[in-house]
């Protein structure tokens, strides 16, 4: 689960990290009031969970409250990469002397949290990693010890930071680590961490990703989840314990197991089609689950054919076949359906599927056949004779 910039910065502030002064606004009038209250030029920033807001015109400077209102009106009517901008952050504009990067990430290969800093802040850290990897300094954190002061100093020295700022940098890094650990983040970053006149350090932008698996112990964070992060169908799927990701092809997929679901999408593409979704139905494949999955798949108007690919291991294929037929009575597919059942009792399963009425059902045995058949049916539907 991603946090917005303003949510991340509020959290940072609670840990004692200095952040720029400002408030979130959901209307142009509110933006104007915030700007007036700050009494200085402000930066109006779209609060939307995608990267590249600046390049898309979602971050702009306003010199007066009136200008802030106008700009907020424009930004609040924008859609960035498909996501509507519902709120803007109105922050005091500051004089920036230098932009640094400070972040914490999970290093999967090392099985450790790693702290990273760079003197090249203000741009995407992945871009820096590609173009100037020598500008990134890392320290590996032992879970029992946490980030230590000497490690934070190693980062400060490594990025050539002015010694006058080391104490402040170290305090910020340690606070960011506490914030990361206590909130079960998988990513926390301050980018840019600005050097402002004084000199002093100020977190101008922040990003946090919270581990979905840990939300059960962070009800406060779960409550502020932005529903725009997921589509309606993805949210609906989650209720049924189904993993669903919408894609833009025409062949709906219903598969048990995440790996097999990806392999099914891939083979559709290999045979010239395009998958409409990723869908892992989870264990069991009962009638209710199959029906819920079918409803999700058919809610996408682009779907021209459905491919059901189930490996019956412990749940036998005959049980799965009965579940599929019962599901068709609840949700009748409007497009042809290709079913591949393999594993335990697969022949019995296929025989049961022969009893389907009122559905254009095609049973196949191999994955290649399944893909070829689904691709053909979807393309027939798109180009009727």
């Amino acid at each position, binding site marked *: 689960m991603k946090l917005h910039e303003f949510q991340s910065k509020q959290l940072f502030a609670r840990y004692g990290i200095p952040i720029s002064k400002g408030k979130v606004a959901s209307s142009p009038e509110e933006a104007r009031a915030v700007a007036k209250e700050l009494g200085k030029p402000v930066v109006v920033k779209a609060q939307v969970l995608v990267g590249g807001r600046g390049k898309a015109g979602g971050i702009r400077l306003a010199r007066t409250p009136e200008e802030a209102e106008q700009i907020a009106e424009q930004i609040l009517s924008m859609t960035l990469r498909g996501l509507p901008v519902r709120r803007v952050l109105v922050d005091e504009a500051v004089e920036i002397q230098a932009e640094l990067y400070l972040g914490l*990430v*999970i290093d*999967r*290969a090392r*099985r*450790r*949290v790693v702290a990273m800093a760079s003197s090249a802040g203000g741009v995407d850290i*992945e871009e820096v*990693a*590609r173009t100037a990897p020598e500008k990134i300094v890392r320290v590996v954190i*032992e*879970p*029992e010890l946490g980030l230590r002061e000497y490690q934070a100093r190693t980062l400060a020295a490594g990025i050539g930071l002015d010694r006058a700022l080391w104490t402040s940098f170290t305090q910020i890094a340690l606070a960011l680590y506490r914030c990361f*650990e206590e909130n*079960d983040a*998988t990513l926390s970053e301050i980018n840019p961490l600005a050097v402002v006149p004084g000199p002093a350090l100020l977190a101008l932008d922040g990003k946090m990703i919270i*581990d*979905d*698996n*840990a939300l*059960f*112990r962070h009800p406060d964070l779960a409550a502020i989840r932005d529903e725009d992060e997921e589509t309606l169908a993805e949210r609906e799927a989650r209720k049924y314990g189904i*993993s669903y*990701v919408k*894609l833009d092809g025409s062949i709906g997929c219903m*598969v*048990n*197991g*995440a*790996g*097999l*679901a*990806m*392999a099914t*999408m*891939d*083979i*559709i*593409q*290999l045979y010239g089609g*395009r*998958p409409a979704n*990723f869908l*892992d139905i989870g264990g069991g494949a009962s009638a209710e689950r199959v029906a819920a999955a079918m409803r999700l798949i058919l809610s996408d108007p682009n779907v021209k054919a459905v491919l059901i690919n189930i*490996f019956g*291991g*412990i749940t036998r294929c005959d049980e799965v076949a009965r579940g599929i037929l019962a599901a068709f009575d609840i949700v009748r597919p409007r497009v042809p359906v290709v079913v591949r059942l*393999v*594993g*335990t009792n697969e022949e019995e399963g296929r025989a049961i599927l022969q009893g389907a009425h009122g559905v254009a059902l095609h049973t196949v045995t*191999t*994955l*290649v056949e399944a*893909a070829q058949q689904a691709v053909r049916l979807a393309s027939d539907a798109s180009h009727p004779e």
Partner: protein
Amino acid sequence: MSILINRNTRVVVQGITGREGQFHTQQMLEYGTQVVAGVTPGKGGQWVLGVPVFDTVREAVEATGANCSVIFVPARFAPDAILEAADAGIPLIICISEGIPVQDIIRVRAYLDRQGVRLIGPNGPGLITPGESKVGIIPGHIARRGPVGIVSRSGTLTYEVIAALSQRGIGQSTCVGIGGDPVPGTNFVEVLAMFEEDSQTELVVLIGEIGGTEEERAAEFIATHMSKPVIAFVAGRTAPPGKRMGHAGAIIEGGTGSAAEKIAKLESVGIPVARHPEEIPEIVAARLGIRS
């Protein structure tokens, strides 16, 4: 021979009185696995399917000599269950539970490293040594004994490959599901090293997916440390970046983890990568010199 488990493995099931635990205990017993004990705090003294239940793993180990644990408890209790097993002296822990927070696993794994305890999973199907023992949830009847080692980040996709190999007359030495989490207890490289040393294993099938750099590191290890042939498959060529595909670890993020990069790396060191799962048995048969 085989790796990790064989007919002498003595298994304790943590969470044996739960629905999943009980169901899979029955499946394991039917397969011939020596399930010697179960643990559910507060239910010590009961019996499940003829297996004695204990309150703690320590009691179970003292009474039965269990040397392997399989965990079926809900995710929020799983880190504790793993630590309890390690503390009781169990050297091999298989965790089936899905949904453990990644920072918990990092802490747990750091402790296990110091104790010299091996963890397989979490969020995986466990493992099977055909004809001897299965620990976890892999359907037993699809596997048959033979020369192919399988290591995978997936569940049903692995079953699919096991079944297809068996149908083609090609058996397996041991099949290991390392799980779909971003930080697995045991990684590809560690399992590959075990297969390299195993006298029964002649060839290894590696089933990867998007996310992280496990496959890339496996490719480097195979190129520099392995004499046995390895065949690979990587799921998720069509997965979009930034979206989690079911498994917590299956996500292309921060510019790494795409299937294309993994496939390119594997192929660059001469490892054949199947385009789809049904190609695997044919490639394996050709490598082993088996004719249809």
